[in-house]
């Protein structure tokens, strides 16, 4: 090589080296943004959690609430905060985390924000099974959760099998899921009508989700599900991100697509089912968490953790609003339903306008 070639080569490689610095810098900046957003979300969840413990018919100050949380015997607050509000708030966070994780997992894996488990029937299945187990069979909480997860998995398998012909990621899958959800919602309504009389509270719980009357035994299975299944999901997080590029490309990049999909679906369905068994299918949380998280974190990088936190925040805020901010007490599912519905329509409008397909 001549001296000119060597100079060119050196210039080229130093150009690449400086480009590499740029790439690294951009990546670090994105990482910083992500960490900041996650930090803010965590702080927000904590704040709303504590606030939800403080407000109510009787207002308890932060000191009293803290006292109860630390296990001290605080007169008055001990029962209201410790027995009534605390399990409810904990379930709100736990269920929100479950729905957020489950929703974004499905949406990522199926490459379609509409393919969320509460839209394609998985929540409906879990909720129909849970309603059946509680109202008709009068089972206890652990058994109800078991029913729910079996039903959730069965629905997932059914939707998958039925839509396989059209390509798993297609709009066809979403429509088939909606059809199955309609059937399951009717089944739930049927089970509910079999109850002594049309009990509105029970109806809203199993049709749109409600945190009323939460007690500790209901919360425990959800916490266990979170503890066991979250690490499983997080371990697949990188592979899951890569599957967004299409099955072929993901395989070409060394991802075992079928295996990843299976693990991730089972984990997501598990989380959703356990949460649904405790509080019903809180409308739209699973659907909304992913897209909201994507908006605030940016399009690059894994959305699992931000989504979970957005879910928790959504449920907490909706529950507080539903209980105290409006004239009547609304169950959390009604609030999220009213919030989520316009967003659903907006999403369709935006996607249609952009010429994409859902």
């Amino acid at each position: 090589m001549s001296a000119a070639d060597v100079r060119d080569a050196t210039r080229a490689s130093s150009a690449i080296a400086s480009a590499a610095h740029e790439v690294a810098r951009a990546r670090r900046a994105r990482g910083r943004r992500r960490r900041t957003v996650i930090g803010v979300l965590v702080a927000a969840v904590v704040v709303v959690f504590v606030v939800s413990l403080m407000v109510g018919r009787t207002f308890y100050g932060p000191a009293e609430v803290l006292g109860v949380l630390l296990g001290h015997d605080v007169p008055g607050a001990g029962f209201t905060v410790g027995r009534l509000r605390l399990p409810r708030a904990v379930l709100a966070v736990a269920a929100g985390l479950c729905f957020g994780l489950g929703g974004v997992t499905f949406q990522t894996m199926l490459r379609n924000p509409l393919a969320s488990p509460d839209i394609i029937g998985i929540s409906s299945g879990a909720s129909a099974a849970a309603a059946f187990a509680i109202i008709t069979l009068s089972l206890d909480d652990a058994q109800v959760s078991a029913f729910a997860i079996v039903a959730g998995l069965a629905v997932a398998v059914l939707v998958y099998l039925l839509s396989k012909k059209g390509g798993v990621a297609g709009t066809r899958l979403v429509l088939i899921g909606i059809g199955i959800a309609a059937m399951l919602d009717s089944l739930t309504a049927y089970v509910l009508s079999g109850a002594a009389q049309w009990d509105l509270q029970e109806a809203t719980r199993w049709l749109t989700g409600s945190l009323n009357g939460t007690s500790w035994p209901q919360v425990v299975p959800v916490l266990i599900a979170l503890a066991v299944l979250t690490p499983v999901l997080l371990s697949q997080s990188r592979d899951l991100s890569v599957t967004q590029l299409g099955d072929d490309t993901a395989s070409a990049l060394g991802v075992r697509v079928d295996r990843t999909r299976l693990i991730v679906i089972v984990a997501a369905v598990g989380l959703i089912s356990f949460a649904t068994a405790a509080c019903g299918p809180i409308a739209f949380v699973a659907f909304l968490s992913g897209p909201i998280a994507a908006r605030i974190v940016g399009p690059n990088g894994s959305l699992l953790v931000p989504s979970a936190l957005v879910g928790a925040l959504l449920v907490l805020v909706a529950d507080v609003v539903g209980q105290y901010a409006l004239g009547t007490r609304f169950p959390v599912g009604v609030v999220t339903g009213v919030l989520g519905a316009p967003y659903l329509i907006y999403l369709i409008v935006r996607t249609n306008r952009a010429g994409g397909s859902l």
Partner: protein
Amino acid sequence: MLTALPAENASGVAAVRRPRRSRALWLIALIGALAVVMTLSLVIGTRAVALDDVWAALGGATDGFDRASVAKRVPRTLLAAVAGAALAVSGAVMQGVTRNPLADPGILGINTGASLAVVAGLAFFGLSAATSIVWVAISGAAVTALFVYTIGSLGRGGATPLKLALAGAATSAALASFITAVALPRGDIAANIRSWQIGGVGGGTFSSLGQVMPFLVVGLVVCLLSAKALNSLALGDDLAAGLGERVAVARGAAALGAVVLCGAATAVTGPIGFVGLVVPHACRLLTGVDHRWLLPYSALGGAVLLTASDVVGRVVARPAEIDVGIVTALIGAPFFIWIVRRSKVRAL
């Protein structure tokens, strides 16, 4: 439009060429089926009633438990038949206007829109007159239809069947949340909230039937008159215009008829889905795609289906009753899934 029906559906193709005689025969068979189902509806219920008591009750005698039960069942049966006919024809016309095999007042969210309008009217404006309720329901249905169609036709390809169905499902879900939100705190109407979320014919009375009949008749007439136009529209707007059809007017009129039918029906029964989907598709197997036959068939088929569903709902869960909206969902949803599956990707 019906490219969604697979080419292997030979019976559908053959039906087009079937002579008029056999279509007339099937029509008679349907009328017979309707008579049978309506009789069953009068006989069956929490207490089964003997046939001569049914005759006597129809003749006006209401003495004795049995005859009184029948007297209550008469308006219910009539309502089921009439609402079923309305919903089926409405669905058939919607499928024709949008060239979408998945169109149905329930799927496109139009029923839910009508319900929401009524609930809002009851809750916020204190409406009580039956006629104004029907008007409100029809307006709700019309607004929702426009809304769903607009959203569904944004973007490339216009209102493809899949996009329209999705837009409808989303709108339906959205409006259903609003119904719950509006009705929940209102103790006075909350007792009836269930009937606004899932349709049922249990509340049928002669007076409510009487109030709604004029609207149904008008809607039906408009739809039947649009039958020929719908045949042309099936070929595509451009071809239809080339054949001399005034496309916009024809579509508008037909759509209006469909909206009136489904709004009026929903005003009395609440949202009942899938009748408008299942019945036209089933009837097409007998009549082919000629709307001049399809619409009357659909009317009869819808009446049969809904009355039968109501009977099933009363029998299966004795002594409780399952609302007819639940039964149609359980029958109709698998059918919906079946259609989605077998339609060619291109057509959708």
